[in-house]
């Protein structure tokens, strides 16, 4: 599988099928000379995203740079999720070192996305989602799978009761949500009986901490 970037120093973008900046979604390709000392490809992408040449990527710049396979911008909640994870010094911006982590994270997710988008539709349908979560070790009931698919489907068109596909940005967010809920539940379920006791404040905190 390939997540080719068309940018400087990168492999050519896969012809025909595929996405701006990588399979399923990713950065808009860039053209810029690599300065000495830095990974040239990474640096070229960094300065392409850092449009005002401030040396750091703002949330707005990140939002502008991240697009799905169909060129729709990443949804705000996914951009906020990424900022939360990678703005490790809480400066409100992404420096070059933080960008390296973000870059790898997105590339890894592109590979995951490409792997599970079996029918090469550019979105993840319910069966593909089931396969992905199953592989990650989450076995959700059919009812939950359907709720999840409805919640994260990217297309507003509804065809009967079937949920539509999930684009790259929302796929990442859906997977992070399932992981985070499951982790929180396990932390609360100290006696491992599958049930938790939780008060209102804890409950709201757990849910509203989700991306």
């Amino acid at each position, binding site marked *: 599988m390939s997540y080719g970037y068309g940018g400087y120093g990168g492999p050519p973008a896969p012809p025909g099928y595929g996405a701006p900046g990588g399979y399923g979604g990713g950065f808009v390709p860039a053209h810029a000379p690599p300065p000495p000392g830095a990974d040239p490809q990474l640096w070229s992408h960094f300065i392409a995203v850092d449009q005002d040449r401030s040396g750091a990527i703002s949330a707005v710049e990140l939002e502008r740079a991240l697009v799905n396979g169909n060129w729709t911008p990443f949804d705000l909640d996914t951009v906020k999720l990424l900022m*939360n994870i990678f703005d490790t010094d809480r400066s409100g911006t992404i420096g070059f070192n933080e960008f390296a982590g973000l870059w790898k994270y997105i590339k890894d997710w592109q590979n995951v996305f490409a792997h599970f988008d079996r029918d090469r539709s550019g979105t993840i349908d319910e069966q593909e989602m089931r396969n992905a979560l199953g592989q990650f070790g989450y076995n959700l009931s059919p009812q939950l799978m359907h709720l999840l698919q409805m919640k994260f489907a990217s297309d507003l068109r509804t065809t009967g009761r079937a949920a539509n596909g999930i684009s790259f940005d929302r796929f990442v967010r859906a997977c992070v949500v399932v992981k985070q809920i499951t982790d929180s539940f396990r932390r609360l379920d100290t006696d491992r009986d599958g049930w938790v006791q939780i008060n209102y404040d804890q409950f709201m905190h757990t849910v509203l901490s989700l991306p």
Partner: protein
Amino acid sequence: MYSGQSGPPRHHHSHGSHASGHRTTVQHHHQHQQPGAPPGADPQVWHWFAAVDTDRSGYITANELQTALINGNGTRFDLDTVKMLMKMFDTDHNGTIGFQEFTGLWKYIADWQQVFLRFDRDRSGSIDGRELTEALRSFGYNLSPPLLTLIEQKYASGPTSGYGPPPGITFDRFVRACVTIKTLTDSFQRFDTDRDGWIQISYEQFLTMILSTP
């Protein structure tokens, strides 16, 4: 401890005719005469229905709705809010909004506009942390300060930059935040049959509650 007995929005404003001129509105694309208003239809609501129904099919698709709904700062409503509205008002589940359904949607948005205007005290066009706290308190939710901070950050219309407060909450996300808090509180209360503020739930129930929020 929760005390959210009644959910927003409260309907103590007259409704129906505030179409535009406020911060959030249905975007008016085309000024055209639309024939065939159903008998008894509110002319203004019909007028807006026709304006949103850009292909004049007689019903509003989700895409038409998303194109029509804009925040005070000109941004489109976010996808999750549009999906929430479709889910609420596409009552016959045919994937589109007919005129009758639109009447309900119209009133709902108009009511929320009033709520938004009432709490946007500084007229900034977005709801900041203090305004959010006041709004949620007035709806009957007594949430802890850390929880309020979390909600402010989650629904802010951008990430928090540096050490300042997060950006304000735009109309679309404000409505979604309030509906989410109401939905979560209601489902918690349904489980809390002895009203002691604690519930016992399984993983399946927990996930169902969460994934049912908009």
